[in-house]
């Protein structure tokens, strides 16, 4: 069986290497990819969409369908992680550990379904608790707001510089994950609950698809942002640029929350109780 697998791999590899011979040579200006659409994008995208960044124009406008379904794929990844991993709170007895912050004594509370009232001197700790590190906590607390600001900048500035919804969303998601790593999972969930993740993730996809549908309602093709000119009271070319921005915000929301959602589900093993 193993030998059979190796034979298949070698045959496929040989086939791929053989097919490489038919590729156009490296950086060949006469290759088919450079003859049909590329010159049109390069020459016309600024006057058609008023977006200086070619990549953003192609990604969100010319190839809008592609990006919309990419966002849907990311949303699906988040939902799949949720359905596979999430364990709804059952009636199992759970042990909660609390630490007296003044003396360092840890107590375990067993078999209570309802959460005891929060006392000032006691803090909830994980089962695998390690003493908090002041340097890491402080540095991450300082860095997180700047990270989020930078993420928003990357989303909003995707027209003019490298960036856009996917990258900015990843940065925003990473900032929340950094908070969860440097403090603990409960802190991060306290900032943004699971329900918020689920709603925002679907809202992101909905903004993208909804913008497309709005264009359809206004009388042009699906995802033809020129139709938004009538609502925004600008000329169609500027409306395309605004449409790309709206869509990028949707992508950013979906990517950010999908990342946090997946991380929370994996790190807490689906219980949302304790984790990193």
């Amino acid at each position, binding site marked *: 069986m193993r030998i059979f697998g190796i034979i298949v791999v070698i045959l496929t590899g040989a086939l791929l290497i053989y097919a490489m011979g038919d590729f156009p040579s490296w950086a060949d200006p006469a290759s088919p990819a450079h003859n049909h659409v590329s010159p049109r994008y390069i020459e016309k995208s600024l006057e058609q969409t008023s977006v200086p960044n070619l990549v953003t124009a192609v990604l969100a406008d010319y190839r809008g369908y592609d990006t919309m379904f990419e966002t849907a794929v990311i949303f699906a990844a988040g939902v799949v992680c949720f359905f596979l991993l999430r364990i709804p709170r059952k009636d199992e007895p759970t042990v909660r550990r609390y630490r007296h912050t003044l003396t360092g004594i840890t107590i375990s509370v067993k078999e209570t379904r309802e959460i005891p009232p929060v006392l000032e001197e006691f803090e909830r700790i994980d089962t695998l608790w*390690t003493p908090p590190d002041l340097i890491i906590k402080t540095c*991450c607390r300082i860095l997180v707001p700047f990270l989020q600001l930078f993420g928003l900048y990357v989303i909003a500035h995707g027209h003019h510089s490298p960036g856009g919804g996917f990258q900015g969303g990843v940065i925003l998601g990473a900032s929340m994950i950094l908070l969860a790593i440097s403090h603990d999972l409960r802190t991060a969930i306290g900032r943004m609950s699971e329900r918020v993740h689920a709603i925002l993730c679907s809202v992101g996809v909905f903004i993208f698809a909804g913008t497309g549908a709005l264009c359809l309602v206004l009388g042009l093709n699906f995802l033809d942002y020129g139709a938004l000119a009538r609502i925004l009271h600008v000329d169609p070319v500027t409306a395309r640029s605004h449409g790309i921005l709206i869509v990028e915000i949707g992508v950013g929301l979906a990517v950010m929350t999908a990342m946090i959602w997946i991380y929370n589900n994996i790190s807490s093993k689906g219980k949302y109780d304790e984790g990193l």
Partner: protein
Amino acid sequence: MDLIVVFLIICGLIFFTGGAVGILRFPDFYSRLHPAGKLDTGGGLLILVALALFNLHHFSLSTLLTGFKIILIVVFVFLSSPTAIHGIVDAGVRAGLGPWTKKKD
């Protein structure tokens, strides 16, 4: 101006070379992390400051803004890189990895 830039870049490259050699040649986890932390902060600081200065050749608002952004990168690298190294070392200590000592046999 050019002299300062070249001097800073060469200093940064020396830092990077030393750091790379250190990562390869030091005996254990902790002592390898030591040059790794220095490399990012020290070498990065020198080279990025040199770039910011080089960028100010044509003095205008846009180059000033670019220089400011580069300095911001330096600030954040300075905050995050030592913290990351500290976190890794901390994790190593908690996992029970002892530091390297010269064997007496």
